């Protein structure tokens, strides 16, 4: 690729990656957080004990977690078409990215919520707090540093997945690296995209760590 074409191509690819990661991360947060809360609340001895619901949710999450992303992406192509009307492009990639990340994040949410002292939850109940209040005002705020750390890990994973999604036409840095760096032996493009990905991941991780640390008062 000529130097003149390189910059616009990189910018466009970076933009596509950012778009895929941003939207799928947002959707993952919106879906994974309640799912994680449900996984904890439906425990026997939890806020809303429901072992059957818990078993079903846990099963679904485990299936989602055990599928390699590349398999998941291909397997749900019909669903992707149903939702977005297409199976290729940046928008279409958001569907498998989200579906892959939700179970992952839900488990991290579950772990973070389980880290909240049981005594603190009981103390709130002893003060007459409703279950909704316990979740909103006790569980989530107490687990916030863990929730942020989990989201950081999820975003990093999404950056990785998004490169794979690029391979089926999602665009982005991964796509650029494969089309130019690998298929056309353009080492410069390869090195630049790799460096860019590494830098972005580092930035995301550092930012996430910083925020989590700021939020923690333990």
């Amino acid at each position, binding site marked *: 690729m000529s130097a003149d074409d390189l910059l616009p191509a990189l910018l466009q690819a970076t933009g596509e990656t950012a778009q895929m990661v941003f939207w799928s991360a947002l959707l993952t947060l919106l879906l994974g957080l309640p799912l994680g809360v449900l996984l904890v609340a439906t425990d026997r001895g939890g806020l809303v004990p429901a072992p059957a619901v818990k078993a079903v949710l846990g099963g679904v999450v485990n299936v989602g977690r055990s599928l390699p992303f590349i398999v998941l992406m291909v397997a749900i192509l019909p669903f992707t078409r149903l939702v977005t009307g297409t199976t290729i492009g940046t928008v279409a990639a958001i569907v498998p990215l989200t579906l892959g990340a939700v179970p992952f994040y839900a488990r991290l949410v579950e772990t973070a919520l389980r880290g909240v*002292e049981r*005594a*603190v939850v*009981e*103390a*709130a*109940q*002893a*003060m*007459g*707090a*409703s279950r909704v*209040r316990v979740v909103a*005002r*006790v569980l989530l*705020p*107490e687990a*916030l540093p863990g929730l942020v750390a989990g989201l950081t890990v999820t975003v990093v994973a999404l950056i990785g997945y998004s490169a794979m999604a690029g391979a089926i036409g999602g665009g982005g840095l991964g796509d650029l690296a494969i089309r130019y760096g690998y298929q056309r032996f353009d080492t410069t493009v390869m090195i630049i995209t790799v460096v860019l990905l590494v830098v972005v991941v580092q930035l995301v991780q550092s930012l996430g760590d910083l925020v989590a640390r700021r*939020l923690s*008062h*333990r």
Partner: protein
Amino acid sequence: MSPSYFGYNLPVIHVSRLRKVYETGVVALDGVDLDVREGEIFGVLGQSGAGKSTLLRCVNLLERPTSGTVTVAGQELTSLDLAALRRARQRIGMIHQHFALLSSRTVAGNVAFPLEVAGVPRRERATRVAELLDVVGLDGKASSYPAQLSGGQKQRVGIARALAAHPKVLLSDEATSALDPGTTQSILALLKRLNAELGLTILLITHEMHVIKAVCDSVAIMREGKVAEAGRVADLIATPGSLLTREIFPLPEPAPPGSVTVTFAGQAGEPVMSSLVRRFDVDVDILGGSLEDVGGVPSGRLRIRIDGGKRAEALDYLRERGLVREHGPEPVDARQPEPETGAETVAEEAR
């Protein structure tokens, strides 16, 4: 609150025939009856596993009893639906062994929590929080986080939080068990002060006798899910052979033959022993004893042996002063019938 509550002498907390069997099959409470009178500090004493925490958690229904009833301030909690129970809980404060503070909130935020639950407007909340922090001696710490506080300070936050919504009763689950002795004393003193100044009724559980001695008006001793003994501390100390007396003033059991065990509370003024020796020409031997401060009254239990001279008269003299509580077996060579001299001085044969 039901009208009957305003009658005097009705207990603020009434627990009747409470049983709790956990799913594991453990019988944690096996028919517990408990009456806590308004304005008193009631201590439940027992070893680990006796069922104390289960009992306390049944009082605000954190734990559903298997059977039996719990009535607090005239309201039978066991018959309430969830919404009504939540409202009732707002008037029952609770403090915890490990404080159970929200680590994500400041001291002020923690104390404000029950006020938020009760729907108190923000401005009033701030006023009340400042007031409470003053009461527990934590002004200046409002914007600290729990992690920055010592154990004693954390428990003060816990107490301020428990008092925020003007509760009638305070439940305390081993509130001082995680604290060092000095801090324990200051927290107990605070509870005592709140009890005196606010008329706050306190039900506390503990495995430590010194807590009972320091602050409790009444006590129930729990063993294996049952109340083995209950009553006013002062009355139990004056009851021959009560569990409480034996536990507060431990002496080797069984008492040796010929010994007499004397229990007294605040009557140490008269030189009883020297009177005995002079008037009745007996030998007095001190076998053992212990002295304790019980609720601010110096009290003790002394085991002595009286030999020779006018032994029977000497014993009568002790009885007249209400001092003889328990007898060892009579000495073999000096066996003579003991005259009964009324209920107050009933002698108990140690077995």
